[in-house]
């Protein structure tokens, strides 16, 4: 049986950790979740696997391959993305490639001195890492891990140690977490810090930062601004975070902070240690049962 679960119960990081520590070989598939009316054991709406979202392959605990449904991971696309092939070259190659697979293409490209083997490995590796880092921030989705399955014979595998990936992914998640601590939700709004005028003097803002500035007003929620400037949630949060860290703007929380009820957590008085004799008698009894 494959290992199955949902990323809302484990992070991708935990799964990578599992693969790393158990030195597994196999294929991890992550799906879009289709929410059903049934509830799971934690009373969350049960999700069944829908369309495939991504695959990650491992060999003996190392990452070797990744692809994502919304991204072209073919060698041509990957080299194009890495700047090793320009758009025109990529287009031509796609036309002429015919049934030549990625491995065959790689041999030809190297033979024709288009690219080096190092270029190919670096580009494929970067593509794998982009996909995996992105998956590490996924909050939910059914997954399954099939032991000993491979991603197919015609893909280029690049072995990558998982530990650094887990650490770097963790750093990125943490960064996102730090941002979320400051910007609790998209319902916050922004206002200029005191003495903003002086502070803005001599500060060099990026183009994206300038896009936000005109909307800094407690009347606008971040959600509204995000829509107007057409940015992703992560992107706008990062920008607001950096403006906030630079002391230029302040974040106005409209929603009241949630106060979570605290469970009493006082340790009970330490039990008087039982006698060894007692424990030995119970063991004897159980053995005889």
């Amino acid at each position, binding site marked *: 049986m494959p290992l*199955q679960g949902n990323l809302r119960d484990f992070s991708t990081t935990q799964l990578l950790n599992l693969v790393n*520590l158990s030195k597994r070989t196999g294929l991890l598939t992550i799906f879009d979740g289709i929410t059903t009316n049934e509830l799971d054991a934690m009373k969350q709406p049960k999700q069944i696997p829908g369309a495939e979202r991504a695959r990650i392959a491992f060999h003996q605990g190392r990452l070797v391959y990744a692809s994502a449904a919304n991204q072209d991971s073919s060698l041509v696309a990957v080299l194009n993305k890495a700047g090793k092939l320009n758009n025109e070259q990529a287009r031509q190659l796609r036309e002429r490639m015919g049934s030549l697979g990625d491995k065959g293409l790689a041999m030809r490209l190297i033979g024709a001195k288009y690219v080096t083997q190092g270029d190919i490995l670096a580009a494929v590796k970067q593509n794998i890492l982009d996909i995996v880092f992105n998956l590490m921030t996924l909050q939910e989705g059914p997954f399954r891990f099939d032991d000993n399955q491979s991603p197919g014979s015609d893909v280029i595998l690049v072995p990558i140690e998982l530990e650094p990936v887990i650490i770097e992914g963790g750093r990125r998640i943490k960064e996102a977490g730090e941002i979320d601590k400051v910007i609790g939700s998209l319902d916050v709004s922004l206002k200029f810090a005191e003495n903003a005028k002086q502070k803005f003097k001599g500060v060099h803002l990026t183009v994206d930062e300038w896009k936000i500035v005109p909307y800094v007003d407690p009347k606008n929620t971040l959600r509204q601004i995000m829509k107007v400037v057409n940015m992703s949630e992560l992107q706008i949060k990062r920008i607001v975070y950096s403006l906030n860290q630079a002391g230029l703007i302040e974040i106005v929380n409209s929603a009241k902070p949630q106060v979570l009820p605290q469970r009493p957590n006082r340790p009970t008085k330490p039990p008087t240690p039982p006698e060894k004799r*007692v424990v030995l008698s*119970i063991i004897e009894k159980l053995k005889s049962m």
Partner: protein
Amino acid sequence: MQTVKMVVTGPFSSGKTEFIRSISEIQVVSTEKSLSKDTAEAAQKEATTVAMDFGRITVDDELTLFLFGTPGQRRFDFMWEILAEGMLGFIVMVDSSKPETFREAKTILETFRAYAPTPYVVAANKQDHPDAWKPEDLRIVLRLDPEVKLLPCIAKDRDSVRQVLLELLYTILEEMETN
């Protein structure tokens, strides 16, 4: 007459009642309540433990072991601390076939550790279930230290239950010897 107690805890429906029922000499005095038919829980099982399970093993004329099972539903977790008081050790039951409960299992484990620093073991229950995660994999996702015992378990099987209890007792003995 001396009594000692051990606590069987774990998420909802992880097999606590079954575990105690398999080994107890008296019929388990469980305060089970039938789940009303329209609730979500009813789809999964017929009865849930409302206040606690209670089992007994008479060791000899002088000594009796009580097994207490905690109620799985979180709205009863005010009971936990009361049950934890003075326990010899505890067992955390995990339904190995329900990965959505693993995080909860870990939280329960940590809560009990905070109540009383007594020895404990983790039982990877329902190992007979086709979707069950293997104990080795559970150990990693539950982030258990290597010295914590994680035992395969089938709560319906008396021998399996006995083995888990024995392992807990060996752990208790070891800790006594090192202290």
